[in-house]
Structure formats: structure tokens, C-alpha cells
């Protein structure tokens, strides 16, 4: 089994709150400098920058898990990842259907643009991406799994926009594949506080909005190769694959 170091929660220039330096080129460059094997692209309520980052990262031998940080109706941030372009597109359709048609104000929230490998703007999202979808956490979780995706509540212990801040508890019936926590709590602490199964996979990522945050916090995955099938096995602790929290 091999070890792969990953930072699976990275925002790009498309997220209004992310720095304008967060272009595909710069993100891949930074990931390379820090010897990351896998990066996750997770903009707020949009998957539209994933494809270009993936293409750029492939050239450097870095795997990309294409995803999104979706905001549920309860304003809980959750990471979702999809294996291929078709599933990702179908989830984008779902987001487009449930994202309120409330316009962004670039002065207040920042720009929401997709740029190509040459940093030319190819798309601008005019709806505010930090809005909450008109779909609750269970509905979104079901959709992610229907599309064979992976569903991970983001920074689940954080004081805002987290499972714990919004609901106070982790609902018993929630079908999360793993939980992302911040550095402010230990894996054991999070599991015992929330009475989770001791085998539950817990991850940490940088939640980078600026270039120098990429790879600042990472998690190790023990698996055969840096692909989605192996990632799912690792999250479930199957066939010797596992998550090793740093």
C-alpha cells in the first residue's frame, strides 16, 4: 500500500471569498511545490472551475478530485466529490436548479469567475454563490450518493456554517462518508463528543482561500493509487485502505 498526501478542500478564483491569485495554474504550481499527490477542488456551490484545474494538474502528475462545497438550506457547508465529468455535470444541474437567483454584488462579496490555463476569463457566475440551496442536507446527501459521489460535512466542528453550528448535533440518520474537522479538535474528541462509530473516517484539509494556505493542512490516504475508487475504499476502511489523520 502507498501513502498519498492530499488537500481536498481548496477554493479557486471562482469562489467570491477566494483570492484572485487562486487560478488553476497557480494552484497546481503550489500543490507541486508542496509535493501534494491529490488536491480537491471545492468552490462554493459551483463545479465550473474543476475541469480546467484537473487538466492542468494532470500535466504535473497531480490527481484532482473534482467537487464542490455545497451550502445546504440549513447553511451547513458540505464537500461533495464526483468521479467523472458526467456525474459532476449532473450535480451542477442540480445546483443550478436549487441555487436562488440572487445576484452577486462584486463590491461586497468579490468576483466569481472561471479562468482557463492562461488565466483568461471564460465564465462569470452572476448568481451569488454563497447563498444556500433550496434543498436540505438529507436531500443533497441523497443526490450526491445517487450520482455515486462522496459526501463529507465540511469543518464539521466549526462555529459557523457547520453541522454542529447549525444543527447542534450530528443527526443519527445522516449518511456521511467521512467528516472534515478543523485543527481545533482531535479526531478522538470529535468522535466521542458526537458518539460516532470509532471507525468513522475523519479528515483535515486547508480550506484554502489564498495560495499560501494550500497544503498547510493535509491528510494521508493509504491506498494503491490516487483514484476515486481507492478513495472510497479508504474512507470506508476497506481492503486495507485507510485514512491517516496528521
Amino acid at each position, binding site marked *: 500500500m502507498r501513502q498519498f498526501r492530499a488537500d481536498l478542500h481548496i477554493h479557486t478564483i471562482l469562489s467570491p471569498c477566494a483570492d484572485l491569485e487562486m487560478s488553476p495554474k497557480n494552484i497546481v504550481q503550489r500543490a507541486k511545490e508542496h509535493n501534494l499527490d491529490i488536491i480537491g477542488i471545492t468552490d462554493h456551490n459551483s463545479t465550473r472551475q474543476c475541469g480546467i484545474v484537473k487538466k492542468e494538474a494532470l500535466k504535473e502528475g497531480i490527481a484532482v478530485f473534482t467537487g464542490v462545497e455545497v451550502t445546504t*438550506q440549513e*447553511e451547513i457547508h458540505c464537500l461533495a466529490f464526483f468521479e467523472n465529468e458526467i456525474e459532476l455535470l449532473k450535480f451542477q444541474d442540480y445546483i443550478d436548479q436549487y441555487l*436562488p437567483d440572487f445576484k452577486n454584488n462584486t463590491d*461586497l462579496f468579490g468576483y466569481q469567475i472561471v479562468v482557463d490555463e492562461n488565466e483568461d476569463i471564460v465564465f462569470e457566475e452572476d448568481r451569488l454563490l*454563497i447563498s444556500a440551496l433550496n434543498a436540505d442536507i438529507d436531500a443533497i446527501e441523497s443526490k450526491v450518493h445517487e450520482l455515486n459521489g462522496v459526501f463529507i460535512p465540511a469543518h464539521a466542528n466549526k462555529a*459557523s456554517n457547520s453541522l454542529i453550528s447549525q444543527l447542534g448535533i450530528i443527526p443519527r440518520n445522516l449518511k456521511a462518508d467521512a467528516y472534515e474537522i478543523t485543527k481545533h479538535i482531535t479526531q478522538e474528541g470529535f468522535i466521542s463528543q458526537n458518539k460516532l462509530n470509532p471507525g468513522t473516517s475523519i479528515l483535515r484539509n486547508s480550506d484554502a482561500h489564498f495560495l499560501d494556505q494550500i497544503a498547510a493542512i493535509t491528510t494521508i490516504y493509504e491506498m494503491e493509487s490516487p483514484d476515486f475508487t481507492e478513495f472510497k475504499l479508504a474512507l470506508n476502511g476497506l481492503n486495507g485502505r485507510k485514512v491517516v489523520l496528521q
Partner: protein
Amino acid sequence: MMTIKELSEKLNLKLSGGAEGLTNEITGGYTSDLLSDVIGHAEQGNVWITLQTHKNVMAIASLKELACVIIVNDLEPSEDMISQSNEENIPVFVTSESTFEITGKIYNLINK
């Protein structure tokens, strides 16, 4: 119509930022902790009562042209929330009272 300054004096609210906006007038109030709900339902000139203390609160307050934000239960606004309150000239207050109590008092004052 009442100004923010008058309201804050009557309720003994502690000012955290946005002092330049104290002379603005109040049209009513909205009580909610979900930002998306405030985007959808709060109206211009409203007092916003919430327990949220992060900077997106100020972005939403500015977008909806709200009069001021009142944070309940003695919660501390974050530093970036205060600095954005100063930039946008939208006052942020803290009260030791609960959401229920402060909302009730403001309702009575406005509807007198």
C-alpha cells in the same frame, strides 16, 4: 421614525462598530440566524437581530441596506465583522439579552 441612536440608548446596547451610521432611521426589524432567510425577507432600514458574528453578516446587511445589526447573548463580533461594519457605516451592537427579549422590546418601541 426612530433613529438607531435613539433605539440603542433606550435599550442600552453596546456599540461595537459602524458609529458613522448611528443617525440612520429604522423602518422595522428582522430576527433570524440564517443569512439566506435575511436575504429573502429583511427589508431596507430594518434592525437585524442575530447570534451570527462573522463578516458575511455585514455583507448581507450592506446588500439589503439594513439599519444596524444587534448581536444577542453577549456574543462577541469577530474583528473582521467590526472592521467591515466601520467600512460600510452600518452599526453593530451587542446586548446581553436573548433573541426573544430584545426582539420583543424593539417590537414594542417601534410599534408604539
